[in-house]
């Protein structure tokens, strides 16, 4: 739910985008605030499955921890 709040209202932190050579995929960083106003960075990446559908992979980093 914190992740949903950040994805919905955060901003694209381009400086933290990375190309992951081991997975041949980009990861994108979104930074924002949770409902309780904690700073959170959400890193998202996509993995195509055998049907061509994209699985959304999400990692969250609590920047106030």
């Amino acid at each position: 739910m914190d992740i949903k709040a950040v994805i919905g209202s955060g901003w694209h932190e381009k400086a933290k985008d990375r190309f992951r050579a081991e997975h041949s995929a980009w990861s994108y960083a979104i930074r924002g605030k949770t409902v309780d106003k904690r700073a959170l960075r959400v890193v998202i990446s996509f993995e195509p499955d055998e049907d061509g559908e994209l699985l959304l992979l999400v990692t969250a980093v609590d920047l106030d921890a």
Partner: protein
Amino acid sequence: MTKMKRKTSARVVYYGFGFPVTLRNVPMVHVRGAWTPDVNYEHLQQALLRVLAEKPARLSGGEVRFIRLAAAMTLQEFAKRFGVTHPAVMKWERARTRATSMGWSTEKDIRLDVISRLKEQPGQFFKIYRKLESQPTRRAAPLALDVTSVA
């Protein structure tokens, strides 16, 4: 494109919502070297809220926090909605896996608010209201959810 490995796990204890939930019959997918649940978390959240509204034991602190965040309410907003102070809500949430100290009438109000947000049929709302007339036990009861019932 390589074919992904998939399996169904009979039982997974998931902590991602802030309290333990036992998920049964969970579709799993092997991605980037790890097995992960292949579920729609939005649907899972809705199903869990429905289970919490009817839970046959008092709500724990973690469950109250989950309900508050699912409604996207701050501590202050949640406190105002239920006629308490925000330190009271903080105290409830600090109970974590234990039942909170809130009165049953407040908890019942919270549960009915959950149902109203899920936009259940009026008949269903009434059925749950009647069910909540008897106060559940304060003993901790872990939640379980069969994922096959989650669309």
